[in-house]
Structure formats: structure tokens, C-alpha cells
């Protein structure tokens, strides 16, 4: 077993708005070396760093849009999001919650700041990830996993060092609640200043960290500040995180699907033909209808 070294520490891009409610820095796929193929199965990562939204009578957000061929995972750190979809589903994603939506064959949905949050305004911070689906599952039925924070498995670290929330995959043999279509680890790691946590993923797993709070040192030698993205080499297995100050980081590790990717807008399929079909189905109302 050898060390999984840091390949790149990526600073956040100039933020842009998704709709009018999400002020995000895109890391995957637009940043250098963070394209879909390299990060497979993580094909998109938008990070809304802490942003203070003023009070608004009309909730800000993103209007109706479709998805097909992947899963969207929303991790809310601060603020609340309300969502609705064309199958009649909906709900509220609160602080510390995770919403795991399997768009698969297709849904229409919309996401807005939750009504009370919007009326009062406040700090908003979240990550939205797109996770690719294996070809055989792309046209399966859509589903939701609304994971409230109290349902997320938590591993307490020794010596009051902090805790690890296991959203998906596992940590120290403790499994997360989310079911996934391919092997994925997704952890919220909360470390007190000076604390250390160790991780080990197979070398082929594409592995990354988003620094949500504080700053960390990786493998004793690489410092990553708040709001940065750390990409690991596909070599070695073990890596170590040390908190330079109280820190929260999102750790991602995923086995690449190694399948062809054909992506356009909100659809991620395997072939151009399937993409054309996705647009055609959307235009013809096969994703349903949502006001």
C-alpha cells in the first residue's frame, strides 16, 4: 500500500449564477484537468461557496429543467432548498441534509430557496454533484433518496478529533445510507484543529476533496485552503488529512465507469444518438410536465 499523492489543488473559478438562486464555482467539468472523463463517474461539481442572499419575497432558484442519464446529489451546508418534480415528488433539503436524485430515464424538476429562508435571507452554501450512471441503468426509473441529517451514519473519531458522516460507500467499515449504482464513497469529514483522519481507496478510484470550512494539510505536505478542490493521482491508495484549523471537507472517491460519454446540456448519455433521442423525448413531453 502506498500514498495517494495530490495531483492538483484547484482554486475556485469566478462564480456564475445558475438561475438566480445558486452562485456557484464550477470545478467539474470546466476546470483544467477536471473534465468528465478524468473525474468519471463524477461528471459535474458546482460549489456554492458561502454567499449571503438578501431577503426576497419571491424565492430565487432555477426553473423547470430536465435531466437524463445520471444522478444529481445536493449536499446542503447552509440554507434550505425546496424542490419539485414532474412525478409529483418534492421536499425540502435542510442544513446537513443530502438529496440524492436518480434522474435516470428522465425527470423535470425545479429547485428554489425554501420559502422562509428566502423571506429572511441568509448565508447559503452547498455542493451539487452529478454522478454518471452505468449504461445499463441510464434508462431505469427515476427515484429519490431524501437523506435527512439524522439518518446519515456518523463515525466518531478517537480522542475527540471530530466525526465522519458517511453519506455513501463506507468509512472504517461503517456503511453509508445512500444506495449507489457503482462503487462510490462520499463523506463529510469534520475535524477539530490539529486532528488527523486517514483514508484508503483503490488507486483507480478518481478521488477528490472539496474544502468547505477551514484549511487542511494533506499527506503532511500539501496545504489546501477553504473553497479549494483537491485532485489526487490515480496511483497509491492511502491519504491523510490534517486540520490546520477546525475544518469540514467533502471527500469523494469513485470507481470509474470507463464507458463512452456523450453529454449536452442536462443530458449525459453514451452515444450521440441517445442524446438526440433525449432532446426529442424532452421536446415531445415524454419527461412529463411541470408548471
Amino acid at each position, binding site marked *: 500500500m502506498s500514498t495517494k499523492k495530490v495531483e492538483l489543488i484547484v482554486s475556485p473559478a469566478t462564480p456564475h449564477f445558475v438561475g438566480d438562486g445558486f452562485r456557484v464555482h464550477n470545478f467539474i467539468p470546466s476546470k483544467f484537468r477536471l473534465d468528465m472523463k478524468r473525474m468519471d463517474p463524477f461528471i459535474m461539481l458546482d460549489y456554492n461557496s458561502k454567499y449571503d442572499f438578501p431577503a426576497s419575497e419571491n424565492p430565487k432558484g432555477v426553473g423547470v*429543467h*430536465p435531466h437524463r442519464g445520471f444522478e444529481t446529489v445536493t449536499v446542503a451546508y447552509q440554507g434550505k432548498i425546496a424542490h419539485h418534480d*414532474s412525478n409529483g415528488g418534492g421536499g425540502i433539503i435542510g442544513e446537513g441534509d443530502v438529496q440524492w436524485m436518480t434522474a435516470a430515464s428522465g425527470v423535470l424538476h425545479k429547485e428554489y430557496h425554501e420559502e422562509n429562508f428566502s423571506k429572511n435571507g441568509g448565508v447559503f452554501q452547498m455542493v451539487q454533484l452529478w454522478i454518471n450512471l452505468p449504461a445499463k441503468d441510464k434508462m431505469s426509473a427515476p427515484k429519490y433518496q431524501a437523506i435527512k441529517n439524522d439518518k446519515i451514519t456518523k463515525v466518531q473519531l478517537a480522542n475527540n478529533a471530530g466525526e465522519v458522516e458517511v453519506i455513501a460507500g463506507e468509512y472504517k467499515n461503517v456503511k453509508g445510507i445512500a444506495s449507489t449504482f457503482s462503487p462510490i464513497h462520499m463523506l463529510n469529514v469534520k475535524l477539530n484543529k490539529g486532528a488527523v483522519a486517514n483514508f484508503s481507496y483503490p488507486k483507480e478510484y478518481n478521488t477528490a476533496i472539496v474544502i468547505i470550512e477551514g484549511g487542511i494539510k494533506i499527506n503532511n505536505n500539501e496545504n489546501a485552503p477553504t473553497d479549494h478542490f483537491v485532485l489526487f493521482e490515480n496511483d497509491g491508495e492511502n491519504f491523510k488529512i490534517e486540520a490546520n484549523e477546525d475544518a469540514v471537507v467533502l471527500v469523494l472517491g469513485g470507481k470509474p465507469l470507463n464507458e463512452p460519454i456523450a453529454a*449536452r*446540456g*442536462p443530458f449525459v448519455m453514451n452515444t450521440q444518438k441517445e442524446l*438526440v433521442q433525449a*432532446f*426529442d423525448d*424532452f*421536446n*415531445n*413531453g*415524454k*419527461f*412529463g*410536465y411541470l408548471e
Partner: protein
Amino acid sequence: MGESKLIRFLASNIPIVKNEIYQHLETFTVKKVKKGEILLRQGDICSHTYFVEKGLLRYYSIDKKGKENVLQFAPENWFITDRESVFFNQPSNYYINALEDSEILVLEKDFSEKIALKNKDFERFNLQLLHNHIRHLQKRIELLLNATAEERYLYFINLYPDIILRVPQHMIASYLGVTPESLSRVRKELAIKNKK
């Protein structure tokens, strides 16, 4: 210019893209325009044809009440210009603006004539494009005169498969000559009919 979509577009339609076409294309300028930027205003003389490499342009008029009427969308691989102004030297009645951050090729008004003089394949293809354009305009007149909102919408999604996701619904309604409410109703009815 090796990466140009225009070169690829021509190469996929003309047996061999001769050197003279490459030579001409190398003289064209690539312009980056920001979302919202206006390339042609009413009253201007339009002196170029634009080819969209990336992004989306819109060709429209503004009537006396201030209402915008969309004549054409131009996504990737489309040409867009005001022919009355560019070929008949009239002040334009129209506007062209960018609906997305775009990259466009700015083509001189006589670009196709110059290439056509040297290359018969291009001349034939260019003529075919013109006929095709007129064919679509004729179809559009017919649809506007006597088709239902649903028939207009179905023709539209065939012509512009990915536009619905890229522009506000009121602009699509304007192109179709229906109210936004009618467009919304058509899409809802289609969804009810076609949802698996």
C-alpha cells in the same frame, strides 16, 4: 481556422474542400460576443453574414408597441443576416442579438460569390442552401396562416431540436406566433399524450 465548424460544415457537404475555400476562410474574423450584445439595429445597414461557431443568435423586429417578433434563431452551424439590408443595401428593419455568449465568424457580403467563382461544388451547395432556406420560409408562411399551435410547435422542435432548453418560452411563443399561454398548453397536452 482548422477547428472551424464552418470548415467542417462545408467539408461534410462538398466532396472536397478545395484550397481556395481554405484560403478564403482564413481571412474571416472570429468575433466573441457576450449574451445580450446587439450585432444589428433597426436603421443600420447590415454589411455581414454571421456564421455561428458556438452559442446562439436571434433575428427579430420590434413593433410599434414595443413587442419583439422573432424571425429566426441561429444556433451552431447556422448562417444569419438581414438579406434585405446586406444584399439590397436598405436600412434594416430588424435586430440581431446574442442570446448566449457566442463565437461567430464575420463573413463579408460577397464571400459566397468569391468562393463560388472558383469552386463549382461550393456554388451548387450554396444554391442548395438558398433553396432550402426558401423552402423553410414557405413552410413557415403556411404554418402561420393556417396551422394549429401544436402543428407549429412540432415543426419547430424538428427544426431546432435543442432550442427549447436554451431560450425563454416567450421568445419561442413569439417565433411561433402564439401566446406564451398557448405554448404552455401545447406542451402540457403533448406531455399528457406522450408520457410513458
